[in-house]
């Protein structure tokens, strides 16, 4: 059973992929389909494509971007950004999304989750929740006011589960882009309180952070920025972790070839020489 997923998160703004830090600083990365194609080839377990500003702009993530990504990407795809009607969700699924992530529309109308899972099935509905920590309490972050109120994250998680969500995507605003590790206690509490799978997000800096968050019992770990600056990043993280609960990559990396930071170690000359004469055989099928 290769049940824990490492999810590559691609944040977009309109049709541009961006990097986010603390939900306040943004850097451009390029075309989303190029990021998706690389993650797919490096054997990511799923891709999460989110338009960060769609709901505040009052629009929906562009269906044409999904079509473009699906042209080049054979990985499972979860899509989010401003989706507030069943019709919009159906169109995105038709274009190639496997699952739909709902954030703002859940807060506006929790029953929307029920409508969506009645139509698409529970397995296709992800509720996405952002939170900040205040006085050791995890509170739901509101995108409109850009602050957290008094709404407890745990209450929102339980409500989403009751309404028919198939998975929870829980993102830490405080740790977004900081690379300091995940908010472990929060995930542990949620996993203990709900029966649906949970995705941890926000804080990846090095492979051992993934190891730490797996021990909380989450089903999936989302990584954003950390994947974009190292060649074969996903395959290297998987090789470093070398865990039976994670689907191994077949790119041929061994755990001892990868540094603590998830980078490939400098190789000995004889190893590099050997690479010159690698013969890959194949056949027509």
């Amino acid at each position: 059973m290769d049940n824990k997923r490492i999810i590559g998160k691609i944040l977009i703004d309109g049709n541009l992929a961006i990097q986010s830090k603390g939900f306040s600083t943004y850097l451009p990365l390029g075309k989303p389909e190029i990021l998706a194609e690389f993650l797919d080839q490096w054997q990511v377990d799923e891709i999460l494509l989110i338009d960060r500003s769609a709901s505040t702009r009052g629009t929906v993530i562009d269906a044409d971007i999904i079509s473009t990504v699906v042209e080049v990407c054979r990985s499972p795809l979860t899509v989010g950004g401003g989706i507030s009607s069943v019709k919009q969700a159906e169109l995105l699924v038709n274009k190639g999304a496997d699952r739909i992530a709902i954030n703002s529309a859940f807060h506006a109308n929790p029953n929307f989750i029920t409508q969506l899972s009645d139509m698409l099935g529970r397995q296709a509905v992800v509720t996405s929740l952002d939170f900040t920590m205040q006085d050791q309490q995890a509170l739901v972050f509101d995108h409109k006011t850009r602050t957290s109120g008094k709404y407890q994250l745990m209450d929102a998680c339980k409500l989403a589960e009751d309404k028919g969500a198939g998975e929870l995507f829980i993102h830490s605003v405080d740790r977004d882009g900081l690379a300091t590790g995940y908010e472990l206690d929060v995930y542990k509490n949620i996993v203990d309180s709900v029966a649906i799978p949970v995705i941890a997000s926000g804080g990846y800096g090095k492979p051992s952070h993934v190891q730490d968050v797996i021990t909380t019992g989450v089903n999936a770990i989302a990584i954003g920025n950390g994947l974009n600056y190292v060649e074969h990043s996903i395959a290297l993280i998987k090789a470093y972790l070398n865990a039976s609960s994670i689907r191994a990559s077949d790119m041929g990396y061994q755990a001892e070839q990868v540094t603590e930071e998830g980078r490939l170690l400098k190789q000995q000359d004889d190893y590099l020489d050997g690479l010159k004469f690698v013969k890959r055989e194949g056949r027509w099928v």
Partner: protein
Amino acid sequence: MIKVDHVVLDYGLGNANSIASCLRDIGCHVIISNKFDQLRSARVIYIPGVGSFNQAMSKLHQQGLVEVLTEIKNNGQTLMVGMCLGMQLFAQSSDENTYTQGLGWIPGHVKHLKERVSNQHTLPHIGWNTLNKQVDDGLFELISARDSFYFDHSFYFETGGQYTCARTHYGAEFAAMVKRNNVVGFQFHPEKSQQAGKRLLIGLLNSYHIDRQPIWITNE
């Protein structure tokens, strides 16, 4: 009308576009359609998933597709391939949302996984899992025991062993692939399972001698 061998059924629910893209990768000329004449002349019809059972059946009924698809399937000349929900529709009935009759092409019923899986396992079953082959079949030609496939479902197809060609294990064993003559179904998403998924689809089409442009794959 242009005759095309590979037709992905567009019935208003499901990820038709992903299946078509994946088939193009493996050298198939494919269209997405719900036109009866194109369906009738197809060599393979792919029925996509992602949706709930009752909604899918009601969309098929609304468009008169249940009768047409059943007629095509009964002729025996067309391979019918179901993915995820598309595969579950082959069953006689399902309990998803409300009791609904299916296409009834393969004896069996679709039930919730919670009836089988202990509560140590979260549901839905989302993630990559390996196949446990039940039969030696040419369609597994390019698949090894290490290959994993992407599953995303809360319900499973309870059917007889004679129709189950692969099982998977998540808290309990259940059907991952079903087959009966010219009807083949995947509980997982081969179109979203990267290289392994493509190899499985190539094996399937080759085992039914269906024309496509051959593609080059490297041995592992």
